[in-house]
C-alpha cells in the first residue's frame, strides 16, 4: 500500500528534530556526568569493566527489572500463540547443503563464544546479554536450518530455562538481606563468584528468551493468506 505524506506527523517529527537538535547543540562539550564516581567505585570492588560494574552491581536493580521485562515479553508472546488445534505447522526450513553443514559447524562455536563473552565480561566488553544474544541466535539458526527440537527438550524444561535466570537473580538479591545488608548488596568476598554464577544463568535464560521470542511466533501456513 502506498501511504500519502501526512502533514501533522511530518510537522511533529520536524518540530521534535528541531527541539532536540537545538538542545544537543546547546550542551557543553565536556561533561563528566557520573563517570568519575563510577570509575572510582569500580576500582574499589575490583571489576575492570566499568560498564559491567554499573550494570550488575551499582545499578543491578535496573538489570533485575530488565531481565523481568525480557521474560515478561516471552510470556506475552507465548500467550499470543494460536493453540495447535488450529492448524499450525511447525517451522521447518529446507536445510540445503550449505545451510545445514554451516549450521553444524557454527553451532558449537557459538556456544563456546557465548561462554567466552560471559567470562571476559568482567574485564572487557562482554557479559550476559551479549552472550545470551549469541546463544539465542544459535538456537534460531538451528531451527531455521531444519533441526527439530529434540525429544528431551520438553515444554517444562524450556520453561525452567526461561525462568532460571530471574529466579537466580532474585535469590542472589535476597541473600544479603539475611546477612544484614540491603537488597543486592553483594558481600565483598563472594562478589566475583556470585556475579559469574549470576551471569552464567542469566545467559542461559536470555538465550532461551530470545530464541523463544522468535520461534514462538514463527510458523508457516497461517490462515489469512499473505505473502
Amino acid at each position, binding site marked *: 500500500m502506498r501511504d500519502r505524506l501526512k502533514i501533522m506527523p511530518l510537522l511533529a517529527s520536524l518540530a521534535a528534530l528541531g527541539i532536540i537538535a537545538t*538542545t544537543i547543540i546547546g550542551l557543553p562539550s565536556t561533561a563528566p556526568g557520573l563517570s568519575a564516581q563510577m570509575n572510582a567505585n569500580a576500582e574499589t570492588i575490583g571489576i575492570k569493566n566499568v560498564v559491567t560494574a554499573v550494570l550488575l552491581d551499582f545499578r543491578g536493580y535496573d538489570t533485575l527489572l530488565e531481565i523481568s521485562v525480557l521474560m515478561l515479553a516471552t510470556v506475552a508472546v507465548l500467550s499470543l500463540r494460536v493453540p495447535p488445534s488450529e492448524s499450525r505447522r511447525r517451522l521447518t526450513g529446507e536445510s540445503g547443503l550449505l545451510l545445514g553443514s554451516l549450521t553444524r559447524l557454527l553451532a558449537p562455536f557459538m556456544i563456546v563464544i557465548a561462554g567466552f563473552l560471559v567470562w571476559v565480561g568482567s574485564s572487557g566488553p562482554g557479559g550476559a546479554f551479549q552472550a545470551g544474544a549469541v546463544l539465542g541466535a544459535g538456537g534460531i539458526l538451528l531451527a531455521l536450518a531444519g533441526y527439530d527440537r529434540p525429544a528431551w527438550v520438553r515444554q517444562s524444561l524450556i520453561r525452567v530455562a526461561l525462568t532460571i535466570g530471574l529466579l537466580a537473580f532474585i535469590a542472589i538479591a535476597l541473600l544479603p*538481606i539475611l546477612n544484614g545488608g540491603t537488597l543486592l548488596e553483594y558481600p565483598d568476598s563472594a562478589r566475583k563468584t556470585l556475579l559469574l554464577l549470576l551471569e552464567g544463568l542469566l545467559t542461559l535464560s536470555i538465550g532461551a528468551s530470545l530464541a523463544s521470542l522468535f520461534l514462538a511466533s514463527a510458523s508457516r501456513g497461517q490462515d489469512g493468506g499473505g505473502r
Partner: protein
Amino acid sequence: MTLVDHLPALLIIAPLAGAAITFVTERSVDRIVAVLTSIIITLFSGMLLYRVASGGAFRYEIGGWGAPIGIDLVADGPAALFLLLTAVVGTAVTIYATAYFPKDCGTSYGHGLFWTLWLFMWTSLNALFLTGDVFNVYVCLELIGISAVALVTLKGDADALRAGARYLFASMLAAMTYLLGVALLYSSTGQLDMEMLRATLTPDSGAATGLALMVAALVLKTALVPAHFWLPTAHASAPTPVSAALSALVVKASYFAILRLMLSVMPPGFIPGAGTLLGILGSMAIIWGSLQAMRQTRIKQWVAYSTVAQIGYLFIVFPLADSGADVLAAALGGVLLHALSHGLAKTALFLGAGSLMDRFGHNEIARMTGAARTLPVLTATVALAGVTMMGLPPSGGFGSKWQLVSASIGAGQWWWALVLGLGGLLAAAYMFRVLAVLLSDTPTEVRPTHAPVRLEWLPLALAVAALFFVFAAPFVDSLAGISTIMLHAGVTP
C-alpha cells in the same frame, strides 16, 4: 535491619517471585500462589503505611551504594498510599479472577498465562511507586506497558487484538519519548536520582527539554485528553478483572511519575505554564470524557470513558502547586484521596459491569432493564460506585472535590472550582442514564449462574468502601504531607 526496613524491596520482590513461580507451576497451583502472594503483599503494604505514618519517609539504598552511584527506593506518604491501594485492588482482582477464569484452560496458551502476566504487572506497579530514579522509571513503565498489553489481548478476539495493538503503539511512542527525555536530562545534569536532580537542577535548556519530553510521554501513558484515544477500547476489550486493574491502577502509576517529576524534581516555575496547561487538559478530560460516556451504548465502554473523565481531576493539583504550602497540601491531599477512592469505586464498577454482562449475556446497556429486581446486588454496586463518581457525600469523590475546590479558591484560581462542579453534574448525567435502565420496571431475562457469590459481593464491598471514604481524608492528608513533594512549597516534611 528489621523486616520493616526491607519492606520496599520485599514489596517488589514478592510479586516478582510469584510471577516467576507461576510460570513453572501448574494452573491449579498458580491460583494458590497468586492468592498467597496478594495476601502477603497486602500485609506488607499495610505495615509500610504504618511505618511511614508513624516514623516518616525513608529511603532504601539498593546494593548499599546509595544515589548517585546506586538506585534508591523512596517510601514516603503518597507511595505508601498507592501501594496499599494497589494491594487492596490487586487482592480483589485476584480473588475475582479465580472465579472468572475457568480452571481447565491449559497452561501454554492465552488464559493459562494470566497469573504470570498479572503478577508481573503487580510487580511493575509496586516498583514504579517506590522508585527514586528516573531511568528506573523507564524500565518500570516498560514492564507495566508490556504486561498491560498482554493482558488486554488475552481474550484473543479481533477487538482485543486491535485494542491491544493500539495500546502497544501508544506505549511505544511514550516509552521512546520518555527515554529520549532521560537522555537529554542526564546529558545536561549528570544525575538520574530524583533527590539529586532536585538539588542540582539549574534553569538550562537541556534539563527543561528533557523533563518536558518525559512529562509529555507520561501524559500519553496516563491517557489525559487529547492523548486518550487508546484507553476506551483497551479497557473495554480486556477481560473484566484486567479492565478493573487498568482503570484503577495502571493509569495511576504513570500519573504518580508525573507527580514526582512535576513536584518532587522540578522547582516551581521550572517549565513556565506547564502546571496551567496540565490543569486545562485535565478540565477538558473531565468534560469530554463525561460527554462521551453519556453517548456510550455498551457498558464497558461507558465505564472506560468515565475513567477518561475521572483522570482529569487528578491534574487539577498542578496549576495550584505554586500558590503556597496550604494550597499545595489541600490540593495534593485532594488528588490522592481522589485516586484512592476512584481506584476502589472504578474496580467495583468494572467488576460489577463484567458480572452484569455475564448474567445478561450481552453488553448493551439499553437491554439491561429491570436489573434492580433480578440482580439487586450488582445494581447496588453500580449505583454506589456511581456516588463516588458523582462526588456526592460521604464518598471519597466528594471529599477530594471539596479539598480541590477549597484549594482553588485559596489560590485565587476559582475557575477550577467551576470545572469541578460541572464535572459532578456531568457525572450525574452519565450515571443516571444507566441507572435509569437498570432500575426500570420491565425485567429482562437473566441467565442463571453457577458462578461463586464472590463475583457479586466483592465489587459491592469495594463500592461501599469508596462510599465512606471521605472519613479517610484526614489520614490521607497527613500522609500526603510526609513527602518531598511538600518541598515544592518550601515546607520541610
